[in-house]
């Protein structure tokens, strides 16, 4: 991703051995491959289904070999026909735009505010620093349903429910604890020597932050941003209760597509899911080195 984890392609693919408890040969590779494919199968099967026609998707017995078609993907972004009914706009072009726009904006905002705060917590500890950090983490650990009841009431009073501003504000606050904890864990790791040297040479605090600290945590910033994007991209309950018809995100729209038991167009749904998953899978690959820190909100580094 950046300078800190630059490795040759062979290393990235795991062809070259560089660490670990011990080494195992290709025999282990074969065994692990079988297990991994079984584990990955539910995702793989959905991706296959996305390329099937409606009849193939519902075939009994399930079809492993079929002639692939792109009709589902076309249908996502154009008008879809459900059997016997008139053409209906799936609306997913808008929902995908909403997901990207809301996630992108709120993550950028959270990154700007959160990085400053993380730097503050890391370098200028306040009285009760740990208490603040604990409260911040707790707001993230709370069940979404607990937080959403009062926010729902507040948004109704303020006229914010269903608007982009409301949803973006909420998601910025949702991403903030994660961003602060992540970035703090990165700032804590920097050695203070360079900063001290710069201060002695007369650099201002602002200069130390922008020219010395920030460039060193570039990889961390990228990882935090991407993680935040995934978290927001996947979020369901807040979106379900606080987005309107025009600001609906993909997860909500997807859940509504499944809602009716009869006449779910599984091929179409699989295509939507596939489009929804691809960015996540790509990002998982890119983030592999920061995955542990990311999923534990920066509380466990390695």
């Amino acid at each position, binding site marked *: 991703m950046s300078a800190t984890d630059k490795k040759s392609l062979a290393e990235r*693919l*795991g062809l070259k051995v*560089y660490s*670990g*408890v*011990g*080494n*195992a*040969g290709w025999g*282990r*590779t074969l065994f*692990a*491959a079988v297990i*991994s494919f079984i*584990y*990955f199968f*539910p*995702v793989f099967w*959905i991706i296959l289904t996305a390329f099937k026609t409606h009849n193939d998707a519902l*075939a*009994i017995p399930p079809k492993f070999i079929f002639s692939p078609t792109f009709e589902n993907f076309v249908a996502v972004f154009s008008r879809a026909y459900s059997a016997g009914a008139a053409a209906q706009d799936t609306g997913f072009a808008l929902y995908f735009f909403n997901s990207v726009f809301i996630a992108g904006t709120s993550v950028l905002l959270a990154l700007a*505010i959160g990085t*400053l*705060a993380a730097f503050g*917590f890391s*370098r*200028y500890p*306040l009285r009760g620093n740990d208490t603040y950090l604990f409260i911040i983490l707790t*707001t993230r*650990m709370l*069940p979404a*349903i*607990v*937080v959403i009841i*009062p*926010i729902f*009431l*507040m948004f*109704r009073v303020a006229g914010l429910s269903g608007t982009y501003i409301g949803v973006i*504000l909420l998601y*910025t*606050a949702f991403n903030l604890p994660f961003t*602060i904890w992540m970035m703090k864990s990165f700032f804590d790791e920097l050695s203070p020597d360079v900063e001290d040297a710069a201060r002695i040479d007369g650099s201002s605090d602002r200069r130390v932050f922008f020219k010395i600290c920030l460039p060193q945590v570039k990889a961390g910033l990228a990882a935090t941003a991407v993680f935040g994007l995934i978290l927001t*991209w*996947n979020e369901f*309950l807040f979106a379900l209760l606080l987005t309107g018809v025009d600001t609906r995100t993909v997860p909500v729209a997807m*859940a509504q597509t*499944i809602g009716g038991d009869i006449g779910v167009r*599984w091929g179409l749904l*699989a295509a939507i*899911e596939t489009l*929804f998953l691809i960015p996540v*899978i790509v990002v*998982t690959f890119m983030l*592999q080195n920061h*995955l542990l820190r990311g*999923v534990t909100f920066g*509380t*466990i580094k*390695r």
Partner: protein
Amino acid sequence: MMKVWEVYPLRVAFLSIPAALLISAVAITLLPPSVSFWVSGAVFVFSAFLFVAYAWGRHAGGLLVAPAIALLFIMNIFPLLWSFGLSFFHYRANRLAPPRFAGLHYYEKVLTDPVVWDRLQVTAQLVVLTVSLQMIVGFLLAMLFAKQFPLRRVLLILVLTPMMLSFVAVGAFFRYYYEPTFGLLSQAVRVFTGEPFVLLQSTAGAIAGIVFADAWMWSPFVMLLVLAGLVSVPKYLYEAASIDRISHWRRFWNITFPYVRSLLMLALLFRTIEAFKLFDVVFLLTEGGPGTSTETIAVYVYRVSFQYFKTSESAALAYILLFTVIVLTNLYLYFANQRNRT
């Protein structure tokens, strides 16, 4: 002549708080809620501005942290305090009637309500099942990937992917696989019994379905943590063990396990907190059914607050959940700090 502001900036800033409270109290009583909300907002922003002006150039730490704290206060802490207040009043979000004071009525009601205890039992059942399955599968997967072998990183991605997926996507997957007529599970069972298999129809089946989906999704999380422990074991310990001809079993308990123990504890706590909030998967797979046999406490709170609109009752209920999660989070951070220090 010096102005008051220039001599005592901090006192002026502090004085602005009661002033802001007074103005917003007046606004709330006189103006309609949608206007008074913004008026009080503006007053508090001005008061915050005075503090910023005071801290500028004096308290860098406070200034850096302030925007984040302010946003979290507005979007999380203030609403929580509001709902805490509401839990002492009779209030329903879909009625116009003004709130009436109720005291501890709702806490009493919630704590003695057999329905709540039933939902807590359902939740506990799901938490125990799914977390223990995740721990076992995650640990086995970690053992598989502990050693270095060709293509390890690529295969690791395949296993790690489910954790990064959306609950909705996972719910949709398993809805498709559990579908009675053409779902893969039903078809596989039909090969043996000759009849379609409706998993989500029975209580045991619905629980199994949810636990399987959730454990599939989160076992990689446990694996990732355990893997971090396994990789941190110094190699020379194994070399010494092999020289001393120590059995595999003892090598595992005496060398490997101590390095993994703290991470297992963290994984257990983290997953328990998350599983306690189990909502999305249940909501998408069974909607709490059949009957209410898989209705977790989170789904129940959702129903009480957004379908029955018993706002005060759900606020009281939410505060009990909040307390539980705070205790668990505290425990988690205690263990995490302990590990980071060593």
